[in-house]
């Protein structure tokens, strides 16, 4: 286990910000902390980063309590803060140089790592420029570059895509996947469920300072849904076919929407093959087929009774 967070409690006066938060992260994972604004994600990250004292519980990195081994543990972390944390009066290169030195990098190794981080984030051409003139996406990328210079074992990204254009967001999400492939374990916090769904191998859903569910995406969706939805685009609509599909015992509903059929049935009952067979027998050509599964948004909605962006 790379990181263990057990029964973490944090109070701000009478307000209980973290209520026995518990999760564990394996090496090589992209672990998502999903929750609405104010759920406790950033507080959790601040505690893991040793920046905020906590009132109860424990946080262990590679079996070591972070309180007792603060400096040693910090050396292994790369933090990408929610806000852009850059010196606007220094160039991109100087920013990287400063943060690299804080992690003990010096000389040719530092230069090598700066070049690597610049290249990874696509900022090599802008290394002599100050972030003042950068776009939001470029600043976000430099923000990430500063955290990966020292090849940390655990990269913690706190909502790294807030306020940027879709192109930069895709670039960042691809970079995260790449970093993971290169061996880094990643904690990714977000209130964008699509991002978490896209990149995270496991997810903890946080609300009101508590982990309300955690597991793989499949495990989480399985918690709230026993059905699946097929969307089939076909060459011609045949109404008698709808009745035949509905007669399959595991199918609950079948409706026509334009040139498509929307079929809802119980999960794990081979609905796809049964429907395909029926269509083939009727001589109807299948133009496309999509199996829609419940999203994490639906999971959150079911578990909390409100939407992630409420």
């Amino acid at each position, binding site marked *: 286990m790379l990181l263990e967070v057990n029964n973490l409690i944090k109070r701000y006066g009478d307000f209980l910000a973290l209520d026995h938060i518990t999760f564990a992260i394996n090496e090589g994972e992209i672990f998502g902390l999903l929750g609405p604004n104010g759920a406790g994600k950033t507080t959790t990250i601040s505690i893991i980063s040793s920046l*905020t004292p906590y009132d109860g519980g424990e946080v262990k990195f590679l079996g070591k309590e972070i309180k007792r081994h603060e400096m040693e543990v*910090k050396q292994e972390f790369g933090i990408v*803060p929610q*806000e852009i944390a850059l*010196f606007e*009066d220094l160039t991109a290169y100087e920013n990287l140089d400063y943060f690299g030195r*804080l992690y003990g990098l010096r000389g040719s190794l530092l230069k090598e790592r700066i070049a690597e981080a610049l290249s990874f984030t696509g900022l090599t051409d802008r290394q002599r420029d100050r972030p003042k003139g950068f776009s939001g996406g470029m600043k976000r990328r430099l923000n990430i570059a500063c955290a990966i210079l020292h090849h940390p074992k655990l990269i913690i990204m706190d909502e790294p895509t807030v306020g940027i254009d879709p192109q930069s967001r895709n670039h960042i999400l691809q970079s995260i996947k790449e970093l993971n492939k290169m061996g880094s374990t990643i904690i990714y916090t977000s209130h964008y469920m699509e991002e978490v769904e896209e990149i995270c191998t496991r997810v903890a859903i946080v609300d009101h300072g508590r982990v309300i569910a955690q597991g793989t995406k499949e495990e989480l969706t399985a918690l709230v849904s026993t059905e699946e939805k097929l969307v089939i685009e076909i060459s011609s609509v045949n109404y008698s076919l709808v009745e035949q599909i509905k007669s399959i015992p595991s199918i609950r509903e079948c409706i026509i929407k334009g040139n498509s059929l929307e079929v809802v049935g119980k999960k794990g009952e081979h609905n796809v093959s049964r429907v395909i067979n029926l269509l083939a027998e009727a001589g109807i050509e299948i133009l496309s087929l999509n199996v829609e599964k419940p999203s994490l948004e639906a999971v959150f909605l079911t578990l909390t009774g409100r939407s992630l962006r409420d």
Partner: protein
Amino acid sequence: MTIFINTLKRIFRNKVQIFFILLFPLAFMTLGFIGQEPAVKVAIIDKDHTKFTADLVRNLKTKAEIRNIKEGKINDDLKTLKVDYVVVIEKGFTDGLIHGKDEGITSYSVKESNFSKPVSAFLEQWLNHAKMVAEKVQHNPDSFYTEFTNYDQLGAIQLVHKLAVNEGAERTKSVLGYLIISMLYTSLIVGLFIIFNKNNHTLYRTLTAPVKIRTYMLQITGSFLFVSFIQITFVLLIIKYVYKLYLGSAGFSIFVLLLLFSLVTVAFGVAISSISKNIIQACLIGICLVAPLAMLGGAYFPLEFAPDIIKTLSNFTPVSWVITGIEKLLQGQSLFSLGKELLILILFAIIFFLLGTFRKADIAK
């Protein structure tokens, strides 16, 4: 040393900061010259016209601006401030003085004013010398003039020298007072710098690295102390070689004392950063604190004639102790004799530094 070097790099890259650190104190210190008291206006009505009274007038000219007035208008001219001090020497005064009589000279000044005190003190000293000489020559007029000329030359040289040193030291003290005020204002940059690092989240990010908050604060403080070192060196060199102000043999001691005071000002800046939530608040708090600290401490004007309550309050400002230290050094005392002043300044630095760092448990906030 990474934070130390990075801070210096950022300070000296900013032209406004360089101006504020190096040129602002110089510009501000000129107020120390402007603030010098004007010359005392003295009128001498000499009815005796002897060699002795002529000598007295000549010497008074080196201390004051001589004005001509009519005897009948003394009161009016004093009231309208045309003159600050009037000396009337009656006929036969010199003879009387040689023969041991203490009469024939009258001085006039506004009762409530201390402005003319240096002139009256000088006059008194002059007459005492003359009386001593007259006694020594057993009231013989011929011997009196011979002996007095010798005594005058010797005495006047001593007197002029002593006065020159005092005037120079006073001016230096006044100019250094303005340097101290500008050092206090410069210290606000430390506070603003720390708040700026909080606001742009680089403080947060720096502390996610293996860096302790104390190390961070110490390195930031260290870099600003280095800046103060440059500032004080630069300003004192200008004072000595361009302004040519009197430093006596205390130049190095004053440098060390000011360096110690910079420890207080930098810690003061750190404390400001701790109690302020944003840059505007820090500026307002800083300015509101610097002005009374400087005034109470005696950096703007001497506190000799201030009420006792002000004098007592001034003991609670570091400015007062550094000014006292400078005063003592200019009077010829050594740095080692300033034990109390140095100790109190160190205590102020520690208190300010602790004030600035003790509230840093939750860095993320």
